[in-house]
């Protein structure tokens, strides 16, 4: 996947910036850097990178605001970088349009995996349709048939809608709010308990080992991630 995609890295810590840049360049990406939100918005406009890595804690503009300004012009995927215990901040960024998040401090391998996944999503066909196959899970989006390990599984309409929301956005963190609005409708957003109960039921029907789920992973305090390729 070292296709020379261009990445804009935004962080006000020079040491982090240097390390991330070195790492990404070593893997064949073109890297641009910015140290403030304003600079990030400006550079994004000028050079339209394929991906933005955005630290949420910037000296000038709030991270969610930067995402909003980027979203005004382009659908560039954004991965936000944030510290531990800032779950609400992460949720706000994701709801504002970020594609994924990483908790600082992170390892180089994790960084590269997330970058690859984000770029893969934009490269792939938008709007998944037809048949989705992920390992031993097969979902037919036309006939609404779900087959796990060769066995057809009966899902209730809500369970199926939830699964469809997941498979349509693979490898991406979906906040409670996003899932609620996709499955239950736009007037929902704070009724997370519905969601939690349905995710639990969906897992019971799909996953072989509930302590090692292969598809629907919990991102504690943030939401869920549907994994299409094992990390």
């Amino acid at each position, binding site marked *: 996947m070292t296709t020379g995609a261009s990445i804009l890295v935004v962080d006000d810590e020079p040491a982090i910036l240097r390390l991330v840049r070195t790492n990404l360049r070593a893997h064949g990406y073109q890297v641009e850097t910015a140290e403030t939100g304003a600079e990030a918005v400006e550079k994004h406009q000028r050079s339209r990178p394929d991906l933005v890595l955005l630290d949420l804690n910037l000296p000038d503009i709030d991270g969610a605001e930067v995402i909003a300004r980027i979203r005004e012009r382009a659908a560039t995927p954004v991965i936000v970088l944030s510290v*531990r*215990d800032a*779950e*609400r901040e992460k949720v706000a960024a994701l709801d504002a349009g970020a594609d994924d998040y990483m908790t600082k*401090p992170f*390892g180089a391998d994790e960084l590269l995996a997330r970058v690859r996944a984000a770029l893969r999503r934009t490269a792939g066909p938008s709007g998944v349709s037809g048949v989705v196959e992920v390992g031993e899970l097969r979902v037919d989006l036309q006939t609404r048939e779900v087959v796990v390990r060769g066995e057809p599984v009966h899902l209730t309409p809500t369970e199926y809608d939830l699964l469809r929301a997941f498979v349509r956005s693979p490898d991406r963190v979906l906040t409670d709010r996003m899932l609620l609005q996709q499955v239950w409708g736009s007037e929902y957003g704070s009724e*997370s*308990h519905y969601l*939690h*109960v349905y*995710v*639990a039921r969906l*897992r019971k029907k799909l996953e072989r*080992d*509930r*302590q*090692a*789920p292969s598809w629907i992973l*919990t991102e*504690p*305090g943030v939401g869920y991630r549907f994994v299409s390729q094992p990390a």
Partner: protein
Amino acid sequence: MSRLRGLAGYAGALALVLVASALIALVSTDVRVGNVSILYLPAVLVAAVRFGRGPAIFASIGAFVLYDVLFVEPRFHVTVADPREWVALVLLLVTAAVAGQLAADQRVRARRAIRSEREARLLYDVARLIGAADLSAALEDVAERVRRELGFAAVGVELADGQRITSAGPSAQPLLRAVDASRAVAPGRSPSAEKPGGPARSVRVMPPQLGRVRASGPVAIPVVGEDRRLGTLLVLTSAGRSPSRDEEGILAAVAAQIGTAIERERLRRDAADAEVLRRADEAKSALLHAVSHDLRTPLSSIIAGATSLRQQDVAWSDAEREEFLAGIEGEARRLDRLVGDLLSVSRIEAGTLRPAKDWHDVGELVDDVVGRIRARSMGHHISVELPDDLPPAMLDEVEIAQVLTNLIENAVKYAPEGTEIVVRARTAGPELRFDVLDEGPGVPAAAASRIFEPFERLAREGAKPGTGLGLAVAKRFVEAHGGRIWTEARSGGGSSFAFSVPIGG
């Protein structure tokens, strides 16, 4: 009201004099008494004692006139034939007037004595009541006592800090509503409008004798502390009369006592705060000391590893390089956990970390936590026991997951490899109970509560890797959920860590 009482006094005096006249008439038809007019004196004295100075003088004059008209020749005529009778008449008037005066004075003194005794007793009671530990209850008692003693419709205390202490009884409501309405119409009369700052809440006690009491604005007496307004003492009188001057004096004294009590309460709270701060400060120093040790250890490894790798004169083998690098990464991650735990502890202690509760599937949460730990600690067999009918619970998923993680990691740390760790969740009445059972060395009973304090593990033998904050963080998260956490020895060896939180949040 007092005018009516005054007229009644005069009427009484008149009646007394008439009765005395009748007696004299009765006596003087049969027997000739020398100075029969002396019989008026008891009437005047009774009028003086019973009704006071005015009626006494009125009675004296009445006696003088009646005696003259009824009994002095020529009868039924104001003129006096015998000059000696003049002397008797004037003597009667003077004696009656002086005696009446003295008796009336005595009456005033007696009433004043009774009143000051009542006042003293009331103020003593107020002083005693207001000394109670709970200021709100004390104010309630004081208001109740003052209202009863002085016969007001309602007595209340509005505090400047907006503290609500009690509410009035149901019978008080119509009157108080009427008052509130009148205050809403005329906010200028509201005592809370006099004071800048937030709205004051009021405490009112409690008119049982409602009857046809007319609601008028309450009388407000300011409660003042050393340098500022602390609140207002409000009095709602029956029938819209204003408090008498005496009552105002008592109310002022009560207000002063309330002011003193509020100030004292504030000082007591300040002192308690200072004590809390001092203890927190001590705890922080101890924590800082422990942290500086725990921060240095991984930093030493990291610096040693990195400088070793940069040495020019050694050619490290790939395996050696890998070892150094693994050490650096591991120690750095340990530092990250330590900083995270420290942040959690300090945030909880500062009260800035509130659980973000929502309904969560408990089995899901346990599975998720165990799944994550199992992936990185292969040495132990971790099993999960969950009933099928476990209900969802109102909790902060991140925090409770952290508690469970810390408890299981603690077990992983202390129980020998190859042993079993059991994670259990079940309902226990209105609570959700989690257990983590291990086959480790167990916790000495004496240390059972201490190990939930930060860095307590340092005091134990053979310090294991970890931040020393895991159990402290767990305890604080559980307590923030209104639950409790504890540990006990298992009968067959090993220890059991358990915590419970309310299912409904």
